[in-house]
C-alpha cells in the first residue's frame, strides 16, 4: 500500500492521474520518434532549453500527442458529381488532462503510395473540413473549417487546424469532423477523382501546454 501510494504521488508529479495501462502497443509515429531522438542527442546547452516550448513547431507546449482517427467513410450521397470521398474523422481527446491548453493541432492525411506523378489535370483535388454535426453530413452552404486545393504528390499532407479549432474550443471529450475531397477544376472528365482513393490514414497531432508549464509561464 505504501509503495502504491508513493507510485501515485510520483505519477501525479508527472502529470498523470493514474498509471497508464495500454491495451496494445501501437507503433510510435515517426514525427514523435524524431522529436524524442533530437532532444536526446542534442548537446546540453549551458542555457537550459525552454521545456515549455516545442521548437519544431515554434509553439508553447510541453506535451505532444498523435491521435489516430477512429472515424469511418461516409456515403458520398447523390448526385456524386465531383465529390470523390467523404469521411467522418473522429479523434478521442479524452486523454487531455484537466487544465491542458491546446496550442497547435495538425491534421495529417497519409496516402498509400509515394507517387511523384506530374500534376496532371486529374490530380488537382479540393479538401474541405466541416465540424461534424449529429445530424449527419454538413448542410450545403455551411462554411467549412478549412478549405484547400492540393495536388496529391506526396505520401502525406499536413493541414493546420489550430486557428479553426481555437474557436471550436475543443472539448476534453472528442473531436468529430467531416472530410470531403472533391475533384478540382480542370480535372480530366474521365477520372476526375484520380488519386483521392489512395487515402490510407488520417491522424491528428496535438500540442498542449500542461498545467505546470502554464503556471510557470504566468510567474
Amino acid at each position: 500500500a505504501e509503495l502504491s501510494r508513493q507510485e501515485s504521488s510520483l505519477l501525479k508529479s508527472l502529470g498523470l492521474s493514474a498509471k497508464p495501462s495500454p491495451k496494445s502497443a501501437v507503433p510510435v509515429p515517426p514525427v514523435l520518434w524524431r522529436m524524442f531522438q533530437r532532444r536526446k542527442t542534442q548537446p546540453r546547452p549551458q542555457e537550459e532549453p525552454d521545456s515549455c516550448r516545442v521548437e519544431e513547431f515554434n509553439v508553447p507546449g510541453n506535451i505532444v500527442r498523435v491521435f489516430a482517427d477512429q472515424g469511418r467513410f461516409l456515403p458520398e450521397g447523390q448526385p456524386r458529381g465531383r465529390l470523390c470521398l467523404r469521411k467522418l474523422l473522429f479523434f478521442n481527446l479524452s486523454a487531455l488532462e484537466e487544465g491542458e491548453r491546446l496550442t497547435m493541432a495538425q491534421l495529417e492525411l497519409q496516402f498509400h503510395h509515394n507517387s511523384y506523378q506530374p500534376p496532371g489535370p486529374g490530380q488537382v483535388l479540393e479538401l474541405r473540413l466541416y465540424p461534424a454535426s449529429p445530424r449527419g453530413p454538413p448542410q450545403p452552404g455551411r462554411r467549412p473549417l478549412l478549405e484547400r486545393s492540393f495536388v496529391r504528390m506526396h505520401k502525406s499532407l499536413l493541414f493546420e487546424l489550430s486557428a479553426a479549432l481555437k474557436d471550436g474550443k475543443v472539448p476534453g471529450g472528442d473531436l468529430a469532423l467531416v472530410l470531403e475531397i472533391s475533384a478540382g477544376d480542370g480535372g480530366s472528365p474521365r477520372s476526375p477523382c484520380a488519386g483521392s482513393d489512395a487515402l490510407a490514414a488520417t491522424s491528428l497531432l496535438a500540442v498542449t501546454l500542461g498545467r505546470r508549464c502554464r503556471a510557470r509561464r504566468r510567474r
Partner: protein
Amino acid sequence: SSAPSPAVSPSPLCKPRRLYISFSDVGWENWIIAPQGYLANYCGGDCPFPLAAELNSTNHAVLQTMVHSLDPRGTPQPCCVPVRLSPISILYYDNSDNVVLRHYEDMVVDECGCR
C-alpha cells in the same frame, strides 16, 4: 541505483553523485516507450568552513559556515543542493493507447552548490 562504492574514498565535499533511475525496476516498462531509464543524479557532501570557490556557494552560505564552525550546535552547515538542472523527454502510451511525447523540466541534476 546509485554508484557502487568506489575503490577510493568518495570526496566528502558537496557535488553531484550518480543516481540511475530504471523505469523497468519499478514496473513501468509496459507504458513507458523511451527512455527505459536515465541518469537523474543527486547532490551529496559537506559544505565545510572555509567554503571553497568551486562549491558554487552564496555569500550567505559562507557566513553560515563561519557561524556553524563557531557554534556547531546552534547553526547547521549550509545544505548541498542542485543549482542547475535539465529537462528530459519521455515517450509513453496513455490510457487511450495514444503515443505521447512529454517534456519534464528539472529532472537531471547537472550542478550542486552550498546554500
